[in-house]
């Protein structure tokens, strides 16, 4: 099983690829709504990508109130 840091790093890389931004532009504690200029539906789109990658399933409500990559990584890590 990957470590929490590895999961976070993979999420940042996948998010950068999904939204076509340089990887170095994204930091773990960034507010992704602001950094990426996305709305909550685009976040859900990203989550689907992440679920497929990590082979986990998260209900929508797990994302309620989540706005930074580190917290998101924690939610995914908890289900690995």
């Amino acid at each position, binding site marked *: 099983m990957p470590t929490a840091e590895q999961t976070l790093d993979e999420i940042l890389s996948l998010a950068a690829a999904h939204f076509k931004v340089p990887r170095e532009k994204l930091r773990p504690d960034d*507010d992704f*709504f602001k950094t990426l200029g996305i*709305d*909550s*539906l*685009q976040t*859900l*789109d990203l*989550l*689907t990508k992440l679920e497929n990658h990590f082979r986990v399933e998260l*209900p*929508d*409500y797990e994302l*309620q*109130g989540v*706005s*930074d990559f580190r917290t998101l990584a924690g939610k995914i890590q908890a289900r690995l």
Partner: protein
Amino acid sequence: MLDLQKYSCLGAALRDAMERFGGETCLIEADREREKTRLTYSDFKEISMPLARALEDADFDAGDRAAILMTNQSKWLISAYAIFYCGGVLVPLDYKLTAGEQLQLLEHSKAKVLVAEHYLWRAIMQSPEFQNIKTKLVLVTEAPLGAELAGGFRWEDFRRKGTPDFVMRQREDVACVVYSSGTGGRPKGCVLTHENYLEQCRALTAWYPFWPGVRYLSILPTNHAIDFMVGFIGPFVCGACVVHLRTLRPEFVRDAFVRYRITYVALVPMIVKNLERGLRAKFDELPGWKRAILNRMIALNKMLTRRKPRVKVSRTLLPGVHRAFGGEVLALITGGAFMEPSTMQFFYDLGIPVVNGYGLTEAGTALTLNDLKPFRADTVGKPLPGVELRVLSPNEEGIGEIAARSKTVMSHYLDDAELTLETIVDGWLLTGDLGRFDKNGHLQLFGRKKNMIVTEGGKNIYPEDIETVFDGLPVKEYCVFAANYVWPQKKLGREMLVMALRLEQNQRFDSALLGEIVARNRRLPDFKRVGGYVICEKDFPRTASMKIKRQALAEELGKTVNRAAVVGL
């Protein structure tokens, strides 16, 4: 459909619908690609009655209030029907609020019963305010066996054998208390009667009828006035089918259109824009020659549907686009927030009409709707049957505050006579929205008189409701405004919240203060966050009791500070 004029309450109309449309499918619930529930009207009745009987046994009487706190799902509607059957008053609560906010509204409503989904009830149990809860009976859906429910009961086990007595209500009796805002201290609970709902349903279905075989995709929260009407009452009294999705992931929403051959769906602008983005990306991937053909077909469709929608023609000309939507969509219904005309036009040109409307919780659901005769992307349509609208104190351009009179307008705000008197004057509901009518009787909106924003997700956000998160901010004083309230721009859109800050003498706006504001802002859900700030040179005007005079401060800011000076957060 049922003749709603003959009914005195929602419970009676729904009860007759169960009998009349018995074998028709009324409800489908799916989670991602997995279908979890499929009920006919007879099944729905069979599941609801033991719950109604158990509520009856628990001394839930006529006029008692029962709150529902759930995402869109079958148990929402089943519980609502059981509550109406017992003569109860429904209090739909917003599942996207924080647990503390939900508890605050629950207390204000004095609900005797709460029906809550397990994850939401868990959050409430962990909330510091939980110890003050006064609700007598709590029913929790989907709780695992043996889960700690703090005195609550599993919804699935809360059933009694036997036939409950149907409790008839009169048209003037209260059907629902719906909160339009007020988590910041002054809850605005709109008290809506059975007449309000029956008349709203009659008006809407006169223009956009449902019938057995129609499938409505329920995506907007059912606690929202629009989905409650077009995703429950409307389809049910017409024998149609409601499809619930337990996820809002765009890819599963798109799948649901096709899987269930959806006829109607109500959407907020954010979702419509998401669909538009997806379609445009697909169009861009087409090879040049295919794209050229598509453009020609769109142009031809546009010409042939100039006067009115012609779905068969559009489906023939643009089969790929329509297949992606399941092939049977008649319209996308939008409302509750400003929609870009270009987005509506994009879909209409593809043969998928977007029906735009205007309304507010205080007025039931909708006051105006586009009748598509012809399609107009630049207005919010015409007043629905039975709705009177007028423009108060119009300026030289004919723009003024919209006032409404209709059988759909709420009775009052719960326990707030003062606010009711300010809002309903001589029988007219003052909407706080600015607009004018064009020569064809269409309403055009030009902004708001009130200090609030409506997000693209259809959420009404009042600055007073979010200011508490900044309590104790190390500055002399602060106040949050809707930017368009301070700097009116005579149109909707570009809505954001702005914080006006007054620093202490000799205090500097440094990175520590900025960090503090940003950190607190992030405690709010993304759609409630403040978008920018301005620093004020003068102390805020205050009343004798030291309350900030918001209107005076907004006027002063509007005159002395340029909107361009707002610094983004």
